[in-house]
């Protein structure tokens, strides 16, 4: 049923590729900002998969299923909040310690707090 030019298949594959890129970034990169961007790419991939599911109309058998779109909207809001929280905490960590990674696991007695 699915040739590669079928839009649903194409979007699904793009979504899978984005999920892969995001997952790779999140797991491999030590820099927290890159990881946060990775989470956003991963999230975008998942939303694209939801979109492909909607286009296929798998669920209720409609032409295009509106339910996944509602989920994607909610998901975008959640992902936005998560990014905001993560960036705010990263900013705070950078202000306090001058580093933006978790790799050196907080050595004892580091002159950390300026405030």
């Amino acid at each position: 049923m699915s040739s590669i030019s079928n839009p649903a298949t194409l979007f699904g594959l793009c979504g899978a590729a984005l999920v892969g890129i995001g997952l790779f970034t999140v797991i491999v990169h030590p820099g927290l900002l890159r990881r946060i961007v990775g989470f956003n790419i991963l999230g975008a991939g998942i939303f694209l998969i939801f979109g492909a599911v909607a286009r296929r109309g798998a669920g209720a058998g409609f032409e295009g299923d509106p339910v996944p779109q509602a989920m994607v909207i909610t998901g975008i809001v959640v992902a936005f909040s998560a990014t905001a929280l993560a960036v705010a905490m990263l900013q705070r960590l950078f202000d306090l310690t001058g580093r933006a990674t978790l790799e050196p696991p907080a050595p004892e007695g580091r002159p950390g707090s300026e405030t």
Partner: protein
Amino acid sequence: MSALANAPFYVTTSGGYLLVLAIILPAVAVLAMLLVPPRHVARIAFAVMAAGLAVALVIVAELVGTGMALAYVVGGWQPPLGLALRADGLSAAMLAMTAVVICATGLFARFHQCLEPETQDGRAATTFWPLLMAIWSALNAIFVGEDLFTLYVALELLTFAAVPLVCLDGRAETIAAALRYLMFALLGSLLYLLGAALLYGVFGALDIHSLSRLDGGAPAVTVALGLMIAGLLAKAALFPLHLWLPPAHAGAPAAASAVLSALVIKAPVFLILRLVLDVAPSSAGPLAGQIFIGQILIGQILAVLGASSILFCSVMAFRQQRLKLMIAYSTVAQIGYLFIVFPLAAGTETLPAWGTIAWTGGALQLVSHALAKAAMFMAAGAVAEAFGHDRISDLGGFGRILPISALAFGLAGLSLMGLPPSGGFIAKCLLLTAAVTGGHPWLAATILAGGLLAGGYVFRIVDRALATPAVELVARRPIPRRLEAVALVLALAAVGVGFVPLQPFGFLQLGRPAVSAMVAP
């Protein structure tokens, strides 16, 4: 799609609005707290805690009274298009346990804040209350939610409320711990969401009841369940994904640690339980053999991880130099017991999973660990407050100055070790019996070894408490009795769970489909 053909499964019952109240009340409190001046925030929290506790108890009473699950169909729209809330026996037990622990934590936090009147209305103290209420609302939503996407949103709300609690004091180490926690939690929830997307793609429905009635699409379902469970494991901090937990839970303020360790990590465990029990067997239709092998495999992987968790983290707990870190590692170890339930509670055609003793044991372990661990973190908080540090080696004889905290710690330890009489004893005894009779000698050995190791690390502290120190310990400041009493009450509750053996057995099965309905073609 047989689910659509029958009469609707979800019908709003007479007490259904209580489920809405359980979620809405704390959420309204969060909003109200943003509007009032800081000194009134704690007052709102206490009013809502009293109301929320009453709601949870009424839900339990309603469930016992009617013998049926409570349900509420939001807006009258039937799933799969609408959303439903539903509380069966297990959910109601979780709601009640959550309410008790949250209320105790609230009292403890208030007494703790009263120690320093000048910061009582400060930022950290004021921020604590809306976060506590947000956690409560999200937990209640997870326990009664019936829709995998609703559960995703609730899980994220839980994360967003729990992460700031870790770094409430704003030190660099705690912010790093909180960020590490956030990274694991975000990865976990995105994997969960991906799994939900795949399930929706296959079935076009996300409510647990519809999913449990549908069949077919085996490979996609296996992948989806694998992704969701892996994501939830990262949030539940099961070995080897536990790395974020010890620094996060040990660095948080005592009241926050109690909530995080007792309740927050139980939510993903609860969801895994729902997925494995309600969604996975689901698909046991024409492809029964194939699915059952998949399910057994999932169960065995979870059990191996759980057993490694018990052994590895118990040893780590034993080796810690700081009291709060030790308790945090013990949390990971005790979570392991919840995962060895899966192969032990493997249901058969005539006996569903929730009819087995292992399942009752797992539920009891969940409740008794929540009570005991909250008590333990509070006792440790009192110790840290009194002496200004929590280095175990320098705490010799703390039992003379803080007898109530030492007693609370010891009683909570009984439950972790699984000594009678305590909730932990009943739970581990049931699990051990299930392991022996079910032919799982390695799991039985793990349960016994975990108990011995827990004994090791608990006695290490009890020994310190009773020791005669070379240099008399001096408390930095007097600790009010009522602060310590909260921990003692929770520890006594954990012991008390052991005095109602087999009573919850029936209660936990309320609202579950009867056996005959399960085997009907």
